[in-house]
């Protein structure tokens, strides 16, 4: 694998938007599948040691993916993604929100815009994630790092309590 594959990550604080660009050594069709097919998505979506578990996924405009990040202890953190626009193999947009186990979203969520393009067999994925507030971004970080990393549950509880106010 080439080491020169692009990865950049920037935050525009004035618009609360995170921009992520990454290249993959695979054709556009395969990378598209990796982002839009449940069985592939679950293999990589959760950063280890978390596991991604998709309960259902209807990849169509208006369709939803309901999934959990599962900790090594078996705790589940549910999220809902709702697809708002799909241009096959080149772009899709979705709303992403944390949810309870009964599919009730915790609004507001974040708006995602994902673009795919291929050059010489390398596929570039450009993701823009718009958040209503940076506080929510922090929560996303907490969720991703909830277990196995440096944050303790104790701190998370405090954080959630302060975010609820």
């Amino acid at each position, binding site marked *: 694998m080439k080491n020169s594959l692009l990865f950049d990550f920037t935050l525009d604080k004035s618009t609360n938007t995170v921009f992520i660009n990454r290249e993959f050594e695979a054709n556009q069709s*395969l*990378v598209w599948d990796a982002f839009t097919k449940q069985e592939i998505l679950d293999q*990589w979506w959760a950063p280890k040691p978390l596991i991604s578990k998709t309960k259902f996924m209807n990849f169509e405009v208006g369709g939803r993916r309901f999934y959990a990040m599962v900790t090594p202890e078996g705790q589940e953190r549910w999220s809902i993604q709702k697809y708002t626009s799909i241009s096959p193999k080149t772009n899709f947009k979705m709303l992403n929100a944390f949810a309870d186990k009964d599919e009730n979203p915790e609004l507001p969520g974040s708006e995602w815009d994902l673009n795919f393009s291929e050059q010489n067999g390398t596929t570039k994925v450009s993701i823009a994630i718009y958040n209503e507030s940076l506080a929510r971004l922090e929560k996303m*970080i907490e969720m991703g*790092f909830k277990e196995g990393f440096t944050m303790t549950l104790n701190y998370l509880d405090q954080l959630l*309590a*302060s975010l609820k106010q």
Partner: protein
Amino acid sequence: MRRDVFQAIADPTRRAIIVLIALQAMTPNAIAGHFDTTRQAISKHLRILTECELITQEQQGREIYYQLEVKKMKEIDKWLEQFRKIWESRFNQLDEVLLTIKKNKK
């Protein structure tokens, strides 16, 4: 209760206050002069920012000046770095998945 830096910047008025005093330390009156809201409302924002340790007070003669704690603002960048790492590990996993799929196709 404990407050954190993200709560401090969740509010647009507080963000505007941060931008203002990032340039120079200011008195509460001078800060309030930049906003259409009441002096009380600004005091409350200043109190929250102080509790979040994003700003500190300094007595100069008869006046109190508020100044920005730049170090604390850097916490935001630290958080961002963690978010970046999540994506990095996620994408490294995707690299492996793609490689496996390609191998299996051959």
